[in-house]
Structure formats: C-alpha cells, structure tokens
C-alpha cells in the first residue's frame, strides 16, 4: 500500500503545482455535484470561472467587481497573516472591521454636510484607529492577564455586532430615513464617499490600500528583522525568547496591525461599496479573510491571488445562480470543495508518497 514520508523541506515544485491540481480536482468533484443536480457541469464551471472574466455580456462589469470584492479580503488577510505566522490567533477581524467602519463612518457623519477635503483622510485615520483599539482589548488582556486571544477576539465580534445594531437604530440613524434603521448613505455625500478612482475600474482607495499592504507585508516578511522575529516566534517560541524577542511586544504588534488593517477595510467598505451603516453591514469578510490567509499560505503574494480567487467564486457563483438556477447552497458547497482540496493537496508538498512493499512492516 501507500506510505507517506515527510519531506525534509517542502517541495518547491509541489507548492506551485498543488493549487492548480486543487482547482482541477474541484472542477471534477463540483462538476459531478452539478451533474447530480441535473445541471450541465461544463456550463456551470464555465460560468463560475470564465464568464466573470471574459464573457462579453458580463465581464466589463464583473472584472472590476472582482477588485471590489477581493479588496477587503486581501487587506484583512494580510493583517492576519502576521499574527498567524507568529502563532497569535486573531479570530475577531470581523469585529475590528465593524468597529473600524463605525469609527470612520461616525467621523464622516459628524461632519455632514461639510465639504472640507480633510474629512475623508480623517475618516481613514478614525477607521484604522477603531480597528486597532478593538484589537488592543484581546492584546492587553493577553499580555496582562494571559487570557486566550482566540476566545476574546471572537467574542468581541458579537459585542461589535450589537454596537453596530444600536448605532444604526440610534445615534447614526439617518434623520431623513422615516424611522427605518441605517445611517445616511455616503453615496449621497460626495466629500466623504470612497468613490472609484477611475469610473468603472472598481479601484477605490480600499483596493489601493490592499495592494500597498501586500507590498508592505512582503518587504517586512522578507527583508525586515521584524519578519524574522515573527517567523521565529511561530516556529520556535523558546528560541525566539532566547534571542531577545519580547513575546508581549509581538502580541501587541500582530494584533494591532491586523486590527488596524481590518478597521481600514471596514471604513473603505462603509464609505464606498456598502455606503451606509445598517444592522446587516458586516458580511463575514473578517471570517472569510481567515480562509484567504491560509489559502495564500500566509504569503503576501499568495494572499493576493487567494483573495482574487475567492472573489471570483463569489461573483461566478452569483452568475451561476442567475443563469442556470443553481441553488446557493450548491455554490457554497463548491467553494468549500475548493478550500478542502487546496488544503488537502498540501500533503503533496510536505510529504512524499511511497509504495509500501508487502511485508516490509
């Protein structure tokens, strides 16, 4: 039978080949599922992967939308990847995303209807600060009282959701909204609106920030002493301690940077594509970003590609529902398959498959 033998170092060739193999495996398994549902599998796969990028009817719209959808995912995932490398688990990016959006939107709404050009930069600072301060709660509880940052950050998501509901029903409610929940819409407040930089391109400041974050993370991880310390702390905590890395400083830095970037993502989303604080403003970007971070192997370039791939399955999935009547849960199962195969194929990069001789054991 087969035997798995651990490679001394992960195979470089397989690290590149496995994502491709995983996508092919997903297409086959997903195709079988679609066929069982009575839909044409080839057409379904074409609509999900090809049409958003190249169909004449949709591509000119959906290609830019890819950036809109991937932007916040990449921005948050980059932040998370620092901590995940160091073994610091911020599961609550969703909460930091919400609080960032609330801080940023709060500043914008407070100045309504002023036309000052300083409002938008101020909102950006407030958004980043909001995400950062929300992440500081688990950070300080961890460094002072040794609480578990996984639990604290996760539970703070629910706290943030309630604050958001209270805000959209109370303090931030649109006074011209006939008593319905939800803030003013930034789309109608141009000074504070995070508009597309070039019309129809999908590029808004949040996407720009995501690209900058990728470059920043790449340099930090590969060139800066901090990147070395983070990796060391993750792989050999004791060795890191002996070489003078302060675990507490690392915790504060990693949670801080992930909170800050999640807060920025929230601000750019609320001031741009989403437009307003509502009771259902958050759509799980903070959680999906965890998947994106791992899908991208915690590598900045990998995260960039993983974010775009996730966005593609969302947009293609909508199209498949619309054009073929595929049920939404089938699309979600398809996305799940993709993640499963990507992670499962990791075995090939870390292990060698050997044929076991009969009786050798």
């Amino acid at each position, binding site marked *: 039978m087969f035997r798995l033998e651990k490679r001394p170092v992960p195979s470089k060739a397989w690290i590149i080949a496995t994502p491709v193999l995983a996508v092919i495996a997903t297409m086959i398994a997903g195709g079988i599922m679609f066929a069982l549902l009575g839909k044409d599998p080839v057409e379904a796969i074409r609509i999900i992967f090809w049409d958003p990028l190249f169909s004449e009817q949709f591509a000119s719209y959906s290609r830019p939308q890819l950036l809109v959808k991937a932007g916040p995912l990449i921005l948050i995932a980059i932040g998370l990847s620092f901590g995940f490398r160091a073994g610091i688990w911020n599961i609550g990016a969703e909460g930091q995303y919400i609080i960032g959006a609330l801080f940023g939107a709060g500043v914008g709404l407070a100045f309504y209807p002023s036309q000052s050009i300083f409002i938008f930069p101020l909102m950006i600072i407030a958004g980043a600060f909001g995400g950062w301060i929300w992440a500081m709660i688990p950070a300080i509880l961890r460094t002072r009282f040794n609480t578990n940052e996984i639990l604290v950050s996760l539970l703070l998501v629910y706290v943030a959701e309630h604050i958001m509901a209270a805000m959209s029903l109370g303090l931030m409610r649109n006074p011209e909204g006939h008593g319905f929940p939800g803030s003013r819409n930034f789309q109608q407040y141009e000074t504070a609106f995070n508009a597309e930089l070039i019309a129809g391109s999908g590029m808004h400041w949040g996407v720009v920030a995501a690209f900058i974050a990728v470059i920043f993370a790449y340099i930090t991880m590969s060139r800066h002493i901090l990147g070395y310390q983070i990796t060391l702390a993750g792989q050999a905590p004791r060795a890191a301690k002996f070489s003078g890395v302060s675990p507490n400083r690392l915790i504060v830095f990693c949670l801080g940077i992930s909170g800050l970037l999640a807060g920025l993502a929230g601000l750019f989303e609320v001031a741009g594509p*989403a437009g307003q604080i509502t009771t259902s403003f958050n759509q799980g970007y903070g959680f999906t970003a965890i998947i994106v971070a791992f899908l991208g192997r915690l590598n900045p370039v990998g995260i960039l590609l993983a974010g775009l791939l996730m966005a593609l399955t*969302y947009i293609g999935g909508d199209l498949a529902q619309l054009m073929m009547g595929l049920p939404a849960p089938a699309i979600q199962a398809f996305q799940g398959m993709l993640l499963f195969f990507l992670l499962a194929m990791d075995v090939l990069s870390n292990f060698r498959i050997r044929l076991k001789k009969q009786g050798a054991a």
Partner: protein
Amino acid sequence: MISIRNILTGAAVALGLAVTAAAAEPTKVGFVYVGSVGDGGWTFYHDEARKKVEEHFGDKVVTSFVENVPEGSDAERVMTQMALSGVDLIFTTSFGFMDPTLAVAAKFPKVKFEHATGYKTAANVSNYSARFYEGRAIMGHIAGKMTKTNKIGYIASFPIPEVIRGINASFIHARKVNPDVEMKIIWLFTWFDPAKEADATKALVEQGVDIVFAHTDSTAPLATLAELGGYGFGQAADMFQYAPKPRLSSIIDDWAPYYIQRVQDVMDGTWQSKSTWDGIGKGMVAIGAFSEEIPADVRAEAAAMRDAIADGTYLPFTGPLNKQDGTVWLKDGEAADDGALGGLNFYVEGIEGDIPS
C-alpha cells in the same frame, strides 16, 4: 422604382420578422432574495409567488432568482448582473435592498424595478408592501379573548415602523376586548434565528405569558409553545403543521396577485412607477384558518373583523387612541393616515417599556 420597392418589401419583411420575434420573446423577470427559498417564511413565500407567475404566464415569461444575497454592495452586484443578463423586471424583496436597487436602477433606465417594504421610488422603481398590521389586529382580538393569564408576549425583530405597527395593532385589539391584558415585548434584532426565537419564547412563557406573537420568520416559537404550552400564530407563512394547537391562526403573505399584475403591466407596456400598500382587501395579506381551539363566538368575531377590514368598513388604527405618554394621537372616530402609519415610531398607551434605539 423596382429597387425601391424591393427595399421597401425587404424592410417590411424585416419589420414583420422583428415584430414576431418581439412577440415570441418571453418577458424576463428576476428576483433577488435576502434569505433561502427553503426558509419556510419570508423568502419562501416570495418564491411561491414567483412560481405562480410562471404558472400564470407559461412560456410567455422566464424567471430567474438569486438567493441568500447579503444587503449592501453584494446586492448591487447581483442586481447589476441580473440587469446585464437582459431581464425586463426585477423584484428585490428585502428592505435592505432599497439603496442598492435605486443605484442599479439609475444605471439601467429601461429595466423596471420593484422594491419590497421600502419607501423610495424612482422613474423605474416602484415599491410595494403589505398591511400586515391588519392581520395583527385580528390576532390581537383572538389573543385578548383567549389569554387566561392576561399576559401576551411579542417577539419583535427590529424597531422599524412595520414592527411597531404590528405591536400596536395587536395590543390595541387585545386591550379592547380585555382591559386587563398586558404585553411583554422582547427585541431580537434578527428576522430569522430559530435558536434565539425559541429562547425568547421560553423566557416569555416563564414570565406567565400564554399567547405569543412573533414578528420573526421561523417556526421556532410555535415549536417551543407546542412543548411548553400556550398559543401562537403563524407568521409570514400559514405554519399549519402546528394547528390546531398551538397555532390559532396565521398572517400569510401572498405576493402572487401583485407580481402577476406587474408582469402583465410590463408585457402591456403600461408599467408605471408607484407605491403600493395593500392588505387583506386586495389579497396581499391572507388570514389562515381559525383553529378549533378558539371558541366559536370568538371565531365568528374574528371572521367578521377580517371581512370588515377587507371591505374597508373597519380601519384597525381608529381613535380614540392615545400615545404611550398619554397625549392624544387619534381623536374619537379619526383614522390614522398612511403617512403617519408609514413612519410610526411610538407605542400606544398601555404598552410598557421603551422602543430600543
């Protein structure tokens, strides 16, 4: 001359072909759903109506839908893709789709949009909603007559005018037939969360409540009442599986007549932007069968009230009614107008507690 005639004939033939092609081209209708078509409540009933549109028009219509669409930028993308796919008419069936609907409608002036439960319109955007509070009035009457503990409970979703209308309508009509009745309200801040709805029901029953209203969409409150005792009502759907006990009656959303009418309007080229707020009279709100558990005389009263509301002889919000703080809202015989009801943001006299904000 000949050549001109040929051209003319050719043009006429081409025109004829074009006209036949247009006549044979089915009207395309898209639906954007916030929930899953299998939720058994809100989205399920919109999808039932979509199926009835297909049944009614046969191959003259093609429908498509996208379910589980988050409100916000995702909704905008789904609607845009739908418009790009060539649909003629799009129904967006959640309050949170309002601003996205208007944004997309501005980009596709030839596509017609219908937004449910909102308040904004545009040249190619109509809105529509149902007067669910008419049903609440009838349920309130039944509850007032049937409560033994004189405590009725209300599981509320979000403090928006629609929900506050429901609370007021139920309370007014329960109090009218039973001056000792008290109402306990629990706010859940969700439209659909079976676990939270079950917990809320339990909490109400533990406080002595024996009749529970729900303004959330799952069957969890009725399932919990079936266990613990007490009565409830079907919400958005008939929920007949819980009849005759604990389900006493139900408020059912029936969107089909409206959807069929609007599709017909698009086919005839007579579609116009408007605001529609229909109730029992037009069939947009249906009242589920009254359970045998309700005493016969109360059943008859409830049926009479339903018919009076349907033909417009009885308006559920008719004075004398005071606001919670005791000031006069409606004088004797005065009925609330739609403007006041549309933005209703206060409790009537007798309800305790504050509307969360």
